[in-house]
């Protein structure tokens, strides 16, 4: 544990990313108590360039951009974490079962996973959301359904490697039943790479949600970064701040989760010496 932390902290970018993510989590938790105007509040001060009154300017309805970005943290993080968590749980269960028991089940599961990996997932997600209607739960479900194969493949490989190790045989000799061995011995030892993959899925999910909202596939009353870029698109000529700032928020957040995922992956891999 100590060594893992030392390896992690030697990735300066990873530590920086972790600090930034922590800050975002705090902002998301404090959303109801954030100072400044309500991001939905319409005012007469429309299309104001950044100034002291509105640090990042206002949009076509006089809504404060900074306030929108701060409130948007909640949506992005909720979608990112919920989708990644769901995808990871589904992927771990399916991948571990397939890898441990093998046979026809393994073949079937891996075939299904392959189909999901081949299809252009963003287009599929957009079609499903367009047909079934917007809503955060739907978006999270769709992203999780599209992302679990990444985890399942990884998990399957790890489980197949671990189940052949001596300590598993030792436990089996003690008379422990197979499902229990899988749950208490094999899966916990296979989780390390999954943690890194899960973090990278958070980044993908945030990016995907932003793209869906950018196409107008989110509820109009939801304050989200992608939605802000959607309205920014109409005013590129006279209000650059409507695009530049919300996009920066998406970019930095996705970058942070990508960096964090890479750093976690490197820190948990004992063979990689930093």
């Amino acid at each position, binding site marked *: 544990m100590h060594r893992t932390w030392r390896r992690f902290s030697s990735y300066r970018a990873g530590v920086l990313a972790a600090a930034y993510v922590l800050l975002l989590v705090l902002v998301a938790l404090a959303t109801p108590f954030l100072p400044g105007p309500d991001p939905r509040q319409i005012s007469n001060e429309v299309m104001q360039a950044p100034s002291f009154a509105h640090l990042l300017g206002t949009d076509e309805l006089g809504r404060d951009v900074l306030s929108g970005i701060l409130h948007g943290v909640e949506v992005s993080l909720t979608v990112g974490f919920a989708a990644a968590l769901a995808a990871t749980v589904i992927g771990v269960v399916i991948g571990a079962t397939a890898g441990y028991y093998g046979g026809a089940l393994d073949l079937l599961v891996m075939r299904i996973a392959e189909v999901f990996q081949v299809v252009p997932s*963003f287009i599929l997600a957009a079609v499903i959301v*367009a047909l079934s209607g917007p809503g955060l739960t739907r978006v999270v479900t769709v992203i999780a359904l599209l992302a679990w194969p990444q985890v399942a493949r990884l998990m399957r490989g790890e489980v197949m490697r671990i189940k052949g190790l001596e300590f598993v045989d030792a436990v089996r000799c003690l008379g422990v039943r197979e499902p229990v061995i899988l749950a208490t011995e094999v899966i916990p030892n296979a989780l390390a790479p999954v943690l890194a993959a899960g973090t990278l899925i958070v980044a993908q999910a945030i990016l995907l949600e932003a793209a869906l909202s950018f196409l107008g596939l989110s509820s109009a009353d939801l304050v989200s970064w992608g939605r802000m*870029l959607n309205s920014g698109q109409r005013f590129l000529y006279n209000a650059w701040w409507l695009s530049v700032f919300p996009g920066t928020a998406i970019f930095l957040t*996705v970058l942070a989760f990508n960096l964090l995922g890479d750093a976690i992956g490197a820190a948990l891999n004992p063979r990689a010496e930093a």
Partner: protein
Amino acid sequence: MRRSLLARFLLARLGWAIPVILAILIVNFLIIHIVPGDPIQALIGDFPAPPGYADQIRHEFGLDQPVLTQLGLYLMNLAKGQLGFSFANRQPVLGLILQRAQFTLILMLPALALAASLGIVMALAAAPRAGSLYDSGLTALSLVGFSLPIFWLGQLLVIMFAIKLHLLPAQGMFSLRTRLTGWPYVLDVLWHLILPMFAVTIYYVAIVARVARASVLDALSQDFVLTAKAKGLSRRRVLWRHVLPNALIPVVTVIGYNFGYSLTGAILVETVFAWPGLGNLFITSIGNRDYPVLQGIFLLTAIAVVIANVATDLVYASLDPRVRSTGLRHA
């Protein structure tokens, strides 16, 4: 002998592709049934359709029959090339999509070519200096590329080069004010192509550079490179004649396998630049609730991705003799 091996390989890959395409068709069929309310809406869309059309569709797709019969009818209709009719565009869906796909390819293919060459050159320059500032710069750049929302990148390019600097056009594929023909028309399209192509390229270079760097590093550590160096060949000659051909194979595959990814990128970029391809059709169809078009786009792009995968495997197999013997994906 060589030819028959390649044919067997092709057969093996088709044995992979056909079930995948079937699964994609089934996914598309299931999508029809997730629409809240009547599946008939998914098949027609929200645009006003002539009276009686709903009944005709209900009958053609057997919507009052058991689900399996419905699936059978659905597959049969698709086999006949019937992807439905777009009332918003007054045109059959298949023709509409194929027509717009051309414009997407005009945007995508030059961007891919540019990204591939840029990525390889950057990797060749960076890999021999592994760990240097330039090399870490390349790694950082590909991380940035992975994290950029491509539509935002498009917006930034428009703000910078079209609006602030007035260098390039912000929207569309050709000038609307003049009617050009011949070479002036081609030049005009190229002129409009620069910004959106650049956006797709940046997005794609990230992937290519990362893979190319790894494969150049790998090739550099091989014995034949040592031999070439020992023969006294110049650094440049070692890189271009011995390292590059071996490093190209993974690059070819990454480009092919990521066909869907770049297609998605192009679609998102199109919406920013009002480029008249699939992306534009997609976003207007979302606005019109023109569901058959949306599903058609998913279906055809997914099938295109599968075909691109098989084609990539074939290119890979003809470049690398080791793959053919196994007939497996990812040797």
